[in-house]
């Protein structure tokens, strides 16, 4: 079984934000929630880099570990999903997540956050694959249709890679070897306890 991961080649990201838009559209993400976002580090200074970040679908995911009601599960593909029927909106996954992935539909005073929402790797939720119930709660289930997450699929510079971790790491290594530089696989050390070195 493949171990699905994301890899953002920051040397290629042009901060067009198309991944953000594609995600919002494909998954009908509610107002105020961005499952994916692009952040520019050292903006306007020499060496600035833009990184597209969403849930990294961590190995031994912290959100899953701290959830008091066990709302999370990791699929055979290594995708970290959650059940909105089980979630109580306590906010603990948001404290634990290194990437700020879990978000809530409301601000959350008096614990009224609502059900947590995050990137599903375009793999839906616990409901039957492709069902309307699944689509309404979690958005598209492209993985079940044999497709990769839309954010990576439509990335114009192929900066954002999605797919089997070993394959996308190999692609990135080749790029780094060919062009002679690479600012690293952002978030990999934190998410997967490994990094891609060429």
């Amino acid at each position, binding site marked *: 079984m493949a171990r699905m991961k994301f890899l953002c080649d920051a040397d290629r990201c042009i901060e067009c934000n198309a991944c953000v838009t594609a995600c919002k559209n494909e998954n009908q993400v509610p107002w105020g929630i961005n499952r994916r976002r692009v*952040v520019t580090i050292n903006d306007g200074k020499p*060496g600035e880099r833009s990184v597209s970040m969403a849930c990294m679908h961590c190995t031994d995911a912290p959100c899953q570990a701290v959830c008091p009601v066990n709302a999370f599960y990791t699929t055979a593909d290594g995708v970290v999903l959650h059940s909105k029927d089980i*979630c109580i909106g306590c906010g603990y996954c948001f404290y634990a997540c290194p990437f700020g992935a879990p978000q809530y539909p409301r601000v959350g005073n008096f614990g009224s956050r609502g059900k947590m929402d995050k990137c599903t790797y375009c793999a839906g939720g616990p409901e039957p694959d492709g069902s309307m119930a699944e689509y309404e709660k979690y958005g598209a289930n492209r993985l079940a249709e044999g497709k990769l997450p839309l954010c990576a699929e439509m990335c114009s510079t192929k900066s954002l890679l999605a797919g089997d971790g070993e394959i996308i790491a190999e692609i990135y290594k080749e790029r780094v070897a060919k062009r002679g530089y690479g600012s690293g696989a952002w978030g990999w050390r934190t998410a997967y306890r490994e990094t891609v070195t060429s």
Partner: protein
Amino acid sequence: MTALVANLRNAVAALTFVALATSSYPVAAQQPTSVDPTASAVSEQLLLQQFKAIQGRGSIPDTKSYTIEQPAGRDWRHFHEVTLRWIGGAAILGILVVLVIFYLARGMVRIESGRSGHTIVRFNAAERFMHWMTATCFVILALSGLNITFGRPLLLPLMSPEAFTAWSQWAKYAHNYLSFPFTIGVISIFFMWIAGNIPNRLDIEWLRRGGGMVGPDHPPAYRFNAGQKVIYWIVVLGGSAIAVSGYLLIFPFYGTDIQTMQSAEMAHGIIAMLFIAAMLGHIYIGTIGMEGAFEAMGQGTVDINWAKAHHNLWFEEVRTRSEPHLAQQQPAATPGE
């Protein structure tokens, strides 16, 4: 005519551009041939060594999303999963074991001279109302809080995930909303009983003799003995700390970020576990640990013999205030004490 002029102008402009481009070409050729665009590039490793979190600029209104990575979540996870469970387990089970052993060894501490049948008022209705309001809130807050820490390993296997979620959801709302009467209770307790709870020299004597529970007899005490003062200050200081850290969590991102909320949660958890352990001790002494103690907060009155034994100086105060003509006789009546 105007079209011809426009065409000519375009042609001139194009020629000028070509001329400029070709003339500048030799200059470009003098630049170093191999450019390393990453020479000054930001590096994830370096940023993480410098800062607790990597932040940048985003283009969506949610400024929280500009933080791209904060590995501190891993440490917080370890605290929540391992450290807090050990602290809570050790504190709560530890105090229970101590109380069981103590009860088996000492049993209920009796009123030595028996009941006189006469009672005096110890806590008035307002005091009892505040105590029980705070106590009821505390028990619900403690159980709903423990559910967050221990519910998943202990309770979830016993019920369906949906039932556990329904219960946890209610527990969460109870926890959030009952924090308000609890805080009011703690503040009231602070003002209501502060007069009797200032530590003084008698407390040293009381602690040295082990109080009435451990020691062989009851050392002299005013309205509150040193042990009760300890409980009072645990409630006031612990209750304040737990309220402040809790309100930081109930109103997320009001002057806090993820790191401060993680710290607040850690403080909240540790204080709560120790608070629960202390209150188990308080409940023990107030019920099966000591004869005649529960009625003080139950009916509000205590037996005169209990008052004489436990709080002799307070008893004298009350007596002097209510029956001044007896005050002179008193020293002669109890020479042994």
